[in-house]
């Protein structure tokens, strides 16, 4: 696995760009920032630490980054490349189980943000 070092305030990736790598933090802290909030302000949506995984969505579906990742201090990450991912998927999918847990956890917390228990959401479904 490739190791990469980022200095404080270096961008690891930017929202809206294409990227097919995921990262795991070895040392340091990474801020996940939403750049296109509806009110036009940048918003820190998560602060990640050692052993946290991020960027996994781009790795899985090759779509654009949904947020920006920035090093909040000098940070070292392990890079999970598409090649490694595809190899594991074929030969040892279970090794990728932590990715499932990350996705499941983010889906729960993101859904919770949409939902206000007192007011309820403003959602309409098209079938």
């Amino acid at each position, binding site marked *: 696995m490739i190791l990469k070092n980022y200095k404080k305030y270096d961008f690891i990736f930017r929202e809206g760009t294409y990227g097919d790598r995921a990262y795991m933090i070895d040392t340091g802290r990474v801020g996940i920032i*939403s750049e*296109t*909030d*509806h*009110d036009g302000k940048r918003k820190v949506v998560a602060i990640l630490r050692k052993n946290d995984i991020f960027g*996994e*969505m781009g790795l*899985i*579906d090759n*779509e654009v980054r*949904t947020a920006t990742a920035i090093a909040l201090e000098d940070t070292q990450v392990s890079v999970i490349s598409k090649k490694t991912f595809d190899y594991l*998927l*074929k030969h040892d*999918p*279970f090794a*990728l*189980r932590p*990715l*499932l*847990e990350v*996705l*499941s*956890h*983010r*889906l*729960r917390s*993101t*859904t919770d*943000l*949409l*939902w206000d*228990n*007192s*007011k*309820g*959401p*403003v*959602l*309409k*479904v*098209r*079938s």
Partner: protein
Amino acid sequence: METTTIFLKEEVIFRKGEASKYAYIIKSGKVGIYKENDYGKRILVRILRKADLFGEMGLIDKYPRSATAVALEACDLTVVDRTHFMRLSKYSPKFFIILIKTLTNRLRDTLGQLKNDGKQVETITRTQISKRGNKNENSIF
């Protein structure tokens, strides 16, 4: 273990807060995923169809059900229990890919709604998984 079951229209498949024991794959019919507020009011957040997978989150992270699932019409479902689910995700790359893509698509949908929240009334479309040409996905079960 993997079994087949039938739910009639408007029958509840599982309720928010219940322990998560099974995941389901739709063989036929439509399933509505609802969120409930503190006063028991239900809001439909997603409609699932043939070949869609649901209920998998609870088997991955062992938390209780995050939503309520109701049959919108008579449904034929494949039921996968935790042991079988673990076995499939361990030994079937194909199942694993479906699983991981289902979660990623839903997360993108939900993030998209969140970004647009306040700007407009959001429209949610069905999960993309069955649109991606997984015509043979039933063959792994």
